[in-house]
C-alpha cells in the first residue's frame, strides 16, 4: 500500500518529490555523517599525538594517485585498486556460488533425511568452527597452487552457514504444510518445488547473507598469506612490506565499503525474492 501511494506522488510532481525525499532522508543521513566526522577528527588528533600512524589528511595526500586512478594496469601485480578488488570479487563469486550450491544441496539432504542428519551433524559442527586462516596451510599443502587454494578457503568458510541454515529451514517446515502435502498426495517433485523450497527459503537466505560476509572476510585472509597474486588482500600485504601504511588504510576502507555493498546486495535480493510474509 505504502509503495503504491509513494509511486503516485512521484509521478504527479517529480520536482518536489526529490526535495521531499531528501528532507525525509535527512534524519537518516545527519547522525552517521556527524559520527564519521567526529571519528576522523579523533583519528587526526591521535595521529598528531602518537605519530605512529598517518592521520586521515596524510592518508588522502599520500594515496591521492591511487584514489584518482583505480583502473591503471602496469602488468604483473601492479594494478589499480579497482582491478585488485575485482580480482578478489571474482574469487569470491566463484567460491561462493559453489558453496551455495553444495550448501543448499547438502542442507536439504540433512533436513529431509533423519539418518543423514544424525550421521553428518557432528562432523559439520566440528568443521564449521575452524577459522578461515587455519584452512590456508591445509589447502596450500593439498592443492599446491595459490589460486585454487584461495578459492577453497573461501568455499569452506562460506559453506557452513548456508548448509546449517538450509538444514534447519527444511526441518522447521511447519507440520501444517506437510499435512497439506500429505492430504493432497503431492508427488515428490511437487512437494519439493511447492512446499519445501518456498518454506525453507527464508532460512536459506539468512545463511546466504551470513556467508557472503564470511566469504569476503576469508578472501582477505587467504590473499594476505598467498603471495604473488592480484587481489586486495595481497595488495595490503605488499603495501605493508613497502611500509606504505597510508595505502593499507585506504585498502581497509575499500574492503569495508565492498563488504557493506555485498551485504546490502544480498538483503535487497532477499527482499525481492521472498514474499512479505506475516
Amino acid at each position: 500500500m505504502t509503495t503504491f501511494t509513494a509511486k503516485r506522488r512521484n509521478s504527479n510532481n517529480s520536482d518536489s518529490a526529490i526535495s521531499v525525499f531528501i528532507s525525509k532522508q535527512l534524519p537518516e543521513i545527519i547522525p552517521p555523517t556527524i559520527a564519521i566526522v567526529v571519528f576522523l577528527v579523533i583519528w587526526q588528533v591521535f595521529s598528531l599525538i602518537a605519530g605512529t600512524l598517518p592521520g586521515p589528511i596524510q592518508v588522502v595526500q599520500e594515496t591521492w594517485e591511487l584514489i584518482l586512478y583505480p583502473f591503471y594496469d602496469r602488468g604483473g601485480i601492479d594494478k589499480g585498486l579497482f582491478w585488485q578488488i575485482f580480482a578478489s570479487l571474482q574469487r569470491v563469486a566463484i567460491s561462493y556460488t559453489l558453496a551455495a550450491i553444495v550448501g543448499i544441496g547438502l542442507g536439504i539432504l540433512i533436513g529431509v533425511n533423519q539418518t543423514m542428519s544424525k550421521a553428518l551433524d557432528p562432523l559439520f559442527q566440528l568443521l564449521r568452527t575452524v577459522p578461515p586462516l587455519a584452512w590456508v596451510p591445509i589447502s596450500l599443502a593439498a592443492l599446491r597452487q595459490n589460486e585454487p587454494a584461495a578459492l577453497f578457503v573461501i568455499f569452506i568458510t562460506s559453506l557452513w552457514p548456508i548448509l546449517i541454515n538450509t538444514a534447519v529451514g527444511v526441518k522447521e517446515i511447519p507440520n501444517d504444510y506437510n499435512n497439506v502435502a500429505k492430504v493432497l498426495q503431492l508427488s515428490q517433485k511437487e512437494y519439493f518445488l511447492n512446499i519445501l523450497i518456498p518454506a525453507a527459503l527464508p532460512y536459506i537466505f539468512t545463511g546466504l547473507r551470513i556467508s557472503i560476509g564470511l566469504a569476503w572476510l576469508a578472501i582477505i585472509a587467504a590473499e594476505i598469506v598467498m603471495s604473488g597474486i592480484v587481489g586486495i588482500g595481497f595488495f595490503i600485504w605488499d603495501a605493508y612490506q613497502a611500509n606504505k601504511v597510508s595505502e593499507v588504510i585506504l585498502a581497509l576502507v575499500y574492503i569495508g565499503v565492498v563488504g557493506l555493498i555485498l551485504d546490502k546486495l544480498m538483503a535487497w535480493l532477499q527482499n525481492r525474492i521472498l514474499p512479505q510474509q506475516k
Partner: protein
Amino acid sequence: MSIFVGVDQVDKIFELTGGGQYIALKGIDLQIKKGEFVSLIGHSGCGKSTLLNMIAGLDLPTEGLVTLEGQRIKKPGPDRMVVFQNYSLLPWRTVRENIALAVDSVLHGMPAAERKAIIDRHIDMVGLRPHADKQPGMLSGGQKQRVAIARALAIRPKLLLLDEPFGALDALTRGNLQEQLMQICEENQVTAVMVTHDVDEAVLLSDRIVMLTNGPESKIGDILEVDIPRPRKRMEVVKHPSYYSLRSEMIYFLNQQKRIKKIRARKTAAVVRHGLEKVNLEIGFLPITACAPLAIAKEKGFFIKHGLDEVNLVRESSWRGIVDGITGGYLDAAQMPSGMPMWLSLGGNKNQPLPVVTALTMTRNGNAITLAKRFYDEGVHSLSDFKNYLLKTREQTHRMGVVHPASMHNLLLRYWLAAGGIDPDSDVVMKNIPPAQMVVDLKGGTIDGYSVGEPWNYRAAVEGSGFTIATDLEVWLGHPGKVLGVREDWAETYPNTHIALTKALLEACQYCADPANAQEIRQILASQEYVSTDIEYIQLEDPNNATCDLNHPMREYAHHQFYSESAINRPSRTEQIWIMTQLARWGDTPFPRNWVEIVERVCRVRVFSTAARELGLDISYTRQPIQLFDGKPFNADDPIAYLNDLEIKRDFSIAEVILDAPRRTAA
C-alpha cells in the same frame, strides 16, 4: 442408510519419550452416515483432534480400524480433505494459487480450462473474488479460513474434516462463516466431521454431537442427536425448544468431565478414624428445602458428633448429577428422590442394574403440582377441570416438568394425572428439568406446569407465574420425599460408617422437626451454599397453618415432615414396592419377578434400627397401608395384581432382575 465412515474399536496409544505409554483413546466406536454433519466435542487433550487425524489418515490407530465406504484408511488422501485449525495456507502463494495447487494435483486428469473453472467457482463461492490474487498474509483470519474451506471443497472430497475451524476467529466473523459453511454443506451434500469446543457451534451445525470424555483413555461419553430442522438460521435455532436442553446437556457433560478430572487428581483414600471405616465423605445434594437434614447435620455438627470429621457436601444442580456421582463412585452418599435407589437397582440408568440401598427416609411431603397462572385464569381449578381443558385443546402440546424419572414428583404427577383420566405420556409431554430451573421455564412458557419439591411451587405462587393445583394433601399425604442413598457395595465396605451417617442424619431430622429451630434452619437453607434463595420462600411450618393470603387461593401446603416418633424415617418396604409398581407402570424399568429379594436389598431396615437404637430413640413402627387420594387400595403382598388393575399404564414387562452378589470392594 449404510455406514459411510466407520470407526471400529479404535485405540490410540502414544509412546512417550520417557519410555512410558499414553493411552489417548480407548474403544472408540462411531458410525457416520453419508451427508451427516458430526461434531466431536470435549475438553482439550481429550483426543478429539487425534480421532479426526485418524479419519484423515494423518495418524493411524494403534488398535481397531477406520474405514471410509468399507475401505480401510491407511494414509491421508484428497477424498478426506482437512480444514486445519490454523488454515495451513501456503503464504508464498496467492489465494488462487493455493486453491490451484490442490485442484491441479488432485484433479490432474481434467482439462486445464475445467480446472480453472472449478477454481474460480470456489473462489466465488466463498466470496473472495476481489482478493483472489492476494497472498494469505494480506487477508484477515476469516478470509483465510474461507480460502481453506474453498480449497478443501474444490477438490470434491467425499468427506470434509474440520479441526476447530472457527476457533481463532472473532464472534461476528465466526457466526457468518458458520452460516456459510452450513449453506455450502447443504447445497453440496457434504459429509463432515468437525472438532470444536464451542457448544453453540456444535448445536448449530451438527446432526449429531459426539462427546468425548477426558483423557487418558478417552472414550465416547454420549452422542446427542440434534433434532432441529434444516435449513437452520443462527438466530432462529436459539428459539427451538431443543436448543437449550441440548446445550445444557453438553455443558453438563463438560462440567462433569472437569469435575471427574479434579476428583481423580484429589487423594480419595478412605480415612479410617474413631472405629469408622471412612470419615471423609462426599455427599451429594440438590438445592431444595428437603436438603435440610444434610445442611443441619453439617452446620450443627451432627456429622462430627458421630465421628464423620471430614464430610463434604457437594451441591449438584440436577438429579442426574447425583446419578452420575453415585454410579461413577465419586459420591459416597447422596440425597435421593425416594424412587431413585429402586430405579438404579432395577437398571433404570442405561439399563445397567446398580444395587443402591437406603437406610433412611429423610423427608416426607413437601411437594406439589403447579400449573401456569393462565390455566387458573381460564378456570382450571381442579384435576377434572384440567382434563377437560386438555380435551378442549388437543391440538396444543402441553409440557409438564418433572425433575427425574425416578423422583416422587414424576411418579406422583403421573399417578395424579392418570387417576384423573389423563395419560401422562400421550396427553401431555413430560420433560426432565432441574428443580431450580422450573420457575424460569414456567415463566418463559416452555412448560405449562410441573411437579417439584419446595420451595419452587411456593415461589411460583408468590411470584404469580403459577398456582398450586394440588399439594401432597391432595395426592398422597405423607409420601416419602427424599431418602439417603448409598451404593450397596459401599454399604458393605463401610458398614459402621453407614450406621454413623444414618445416626447423624436421623438426629439432624429430629432437629429439623422442632418448630423452635425453624427460623435458624430457614436461615441456613437460604444461604449461598444451600438453596441460595430468598428466605421468604423457605417454609417449614406445620401444615395446619395457612400460609398466605394472596388474591388467588393459596393451598394449604403439606410442608416437609422430617421426623416423628411414628417411624416416618424408617425405610418402608411397602413404599418401595409401590415405587416398583409405578416404575414398571410407566415403562421405566421392568417389574422384577424377584421383587421380594430386591426390596429386601434396597431397604436397609436393620441399619436404620441400629442407628435409632444407638441414638436411644423410641421409635414404634406399625405397618400401615398406603393411602392415595383416589382411594385405590394397594396390596403390597400382590403388586402384580395391583399393576394389572391400573387402567392407564404402559406395556410393562416382568423380568428377573439379576443384581451382583453383595460384595465388599477392596477399599
